[in-house]
């Protein structure tokens, strides 16, 4: 921002009071607050993970969980922690992180806090194809069983990408406008919801129940086979997002300003959207559409860091911590464990309403 107002005479502009760290052509502004927030959120995430791993039918104390994680513990504890509970909690953390980054990107692109992938229907697209696989797979016996296991994540991924493509195409009219994207998304969402409901009606009752669990967003019985795809997606896509997001700051001022600053606006935006959709779809494929993490986490992160737009790294950690903590509540606070998505929805929906009440005017633009 300072660059715009100060009319800096030579390229390496200085942000007052903030030393820039440079190495070759790369530079980062030293922001102590961001670093503190990142460290604290990581700590919260770690504590949440340890608590979540400790809770269950065979309670394991926090100290013992930490011991197992660092290589100690007896065989029984190691089995429960490393083979059963760690992958489940880790899936929660990774999925939450992926959704949050996806939300941070879409919100920054649309310049609208409401444009998260679950509101605009991308996760619903992933869900619709996944439910289709569950219902069809259930109807075709053994082959279907295999199809369901292997095909679910792939189907969800394809569904999410396809939906995003359609939404993007339909909201394109000489550029993307935040509110048009959101409203087109709501329309697509409604249409997909009707398809999902119809699939639930034609399904056998136990397939319908399975699909409903999945549709709510559940971490139950997630193993390492769920951790790996999301982990890989994060490893590949988050650095890509960080690099691409370099231009997000310019997008914040509007397309024309960004162009004036030398950005290839549509190019950057398209690639960022691809990254965001990929993250949302992979996350949905692993754990179902966990509601509102993508909406809420970037907003919390933005307020913690005090930045002008949702920060990517902080969103990742906040989303992960949020999901893991919600899972702790979902698994332990009720007589029978609930899917994590119910907790995040109960927390997230009031927040969305608050956003609307508070920022009604901003939401319009």
């Amino acid at each position, binding site marked *: 921002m300072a660059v715009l107002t100060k009319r800096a005479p030579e390229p390496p502009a200085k942000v007052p009071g903030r030393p820039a760290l440079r190495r070759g052509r790369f530079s980062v502004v030293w922001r102590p607050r961001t670093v503190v927030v990142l460290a604290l959120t990581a700590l919260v995430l770690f504590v949440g993970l340890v608590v979540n791993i400790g809770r269950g039918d065979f309670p394991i104390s926090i100290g013992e969980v930490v011991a197992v994680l660092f290589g100690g513990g007896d065989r029984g504890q190691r089995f429960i922690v490393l083979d059963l509970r760690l992958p489940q909690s880790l899936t929660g953390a990774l999925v939450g992180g992926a959704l949050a980054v996806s939300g941070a990107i879409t919100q920054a692109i649309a310049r609208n806090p*409401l444009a998260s992938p*679950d*509101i605009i229907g991308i996760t619903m697209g992933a869900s619709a194809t996944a439910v289709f696989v569950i219902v069809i797979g259930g109807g075709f016996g053994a082959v279907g069983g295999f199809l369901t296991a292997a095909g679910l994540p792939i189907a969800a991924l394809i569904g999410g990408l396809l939906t995003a493509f359609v939404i993007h195409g*339909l*909201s394109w*009219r000489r550029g993307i406008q935040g*509110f*048009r994207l*959101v*409203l*087109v998304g*709501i*329309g*697509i*969402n*409604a*249409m997909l*919801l*009707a*398809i999902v*409901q*119809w699939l*639930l*009606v*034609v399904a056998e*009752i136990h397939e*319908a*129940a399975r699909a*409903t*669990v999945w*549709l*709510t967003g559940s971490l139950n019985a997630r193993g390492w086979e769920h951790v790996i795809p999301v982990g890989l997606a994060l490893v590949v896509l988050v650095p890509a997002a960080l690099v691409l997001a370099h231009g997000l700051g310019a997008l914040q001022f509007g397309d024309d300003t960004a162009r004036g600053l030398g950005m290839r606006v549509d190019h950057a935006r398209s690639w960022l959207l691809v990254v965001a959709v990929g993250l949302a779809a992979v996350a949905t494929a692993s754990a179902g559409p966990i*509601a*509102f993490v993508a909406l809420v986490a970037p907003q919390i992160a933005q307020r913690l860091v005090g930045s002008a737009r949702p920060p990517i790294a902080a969103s990742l950690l906040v989303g992960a911590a949020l999901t893991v903590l919600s899972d702790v509540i979902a698994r332990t606070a009720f007589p*029978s464990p*609930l*899917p994590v*998505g*119910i907790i995040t*929805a*109960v927390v*997230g*929906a*009031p927040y*969305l*309403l608050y956003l*609307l*009440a*508070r*920022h*009604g*005017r901003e*939401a*319009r633009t």
Partner: protein
Amino acid sequence: MVSAAQHSAPEETPLSTVTPVPATATGRPPGPRRSLRGRRLVGLALLLVALVAGALLSVAVGAKPIPLDVVWDALVRPDLTLEDHIVVRSLRIPRTVLGLVAGAALGLSGALIQGHTRNPLADPGLLGINAGAAFLVVLGIYVFSVTDPLGYVWFAFAGAAAASVAVFVLGSVGRGGATPVTLALAGSAISALLGALTSAVILIDVAALDAYRFWAVGSLAGRDGEVLTNVVWFLAAGAVLALASAPALNALSLGDDVARSLGHSVRRTRILGTVAITLLAGGATAACGPIAFVGLVVPHIVRTFTGPDYRWLLPASALSGSVLLLVGDVLGRVLVRPGELQVGIVLALVGAPFFIYLVRRRKMVDI
């Protein structure tokens, strides 16, 4: 019918900018008024024809193929020893009547919501009213073991009422007032919240899931005739309130201040309007399950030939709502034979693209 109306008057766009003539206006404005009146009469006549045709189709077409002359016999000289006659009289006629009544209620409530919020994208389904009804129905099934669709009615009604009040309150709380986007989003937030709670219940209780999923798609099939007799008085009261509020709505569409200076109480109009919307949308949802998009689509189509005058717009919306619901229902029966696509799904598949079309238009309709 719309296209016919458009052919008679190719000057389509100026119409939406013609100021609505309030009920208190005297004298006859020159020029466009006359052609507008002609267009309205033609439009209404075509609507009535479509309505009769839709009703006849709905009686004539079904899962069991029955020759038209037998259907006709069942209508005019019923013989209750014949199976076909029983099918027509005890299944298809109640279904058609339900479609007529519920469609009219949904059309009216859509026109009212759009009028009161001045939001071209408003619709009872999108505004979370359906989700409210659905949640309480599930609670009814789970907590009170209601299994009879007849018993769902009251729960659906209460849920619809609570959700509509919540959305309207939230819509007016925001700093910018109720904009199209904030209302649509408040609706989807409420829907998401209630949807999660609904899933929580049906995941605990598989029996509730089994009962709920058939209610949740929105259908005219298999709804008991008694369901309609339970809600028809609410719908009638809502319709009377709605039609009576037409002059006040005309004044409101000129802006709150103008309405006040014309002697209308804005507050009273809004409260009565919310009551009417709740009665109509809640009653229809109670009877058929959640059906979205009728209330969204109908006023836009109707406005093309009635103009913005609510004294014409409201009755025409009621008629069009019936036509749309009946035609959607018949389509659902025909499209996936021998199965059936519930009308709620047919209408979502038709209505959502229409919604997107409205969003994409250069300038949203001024209401």
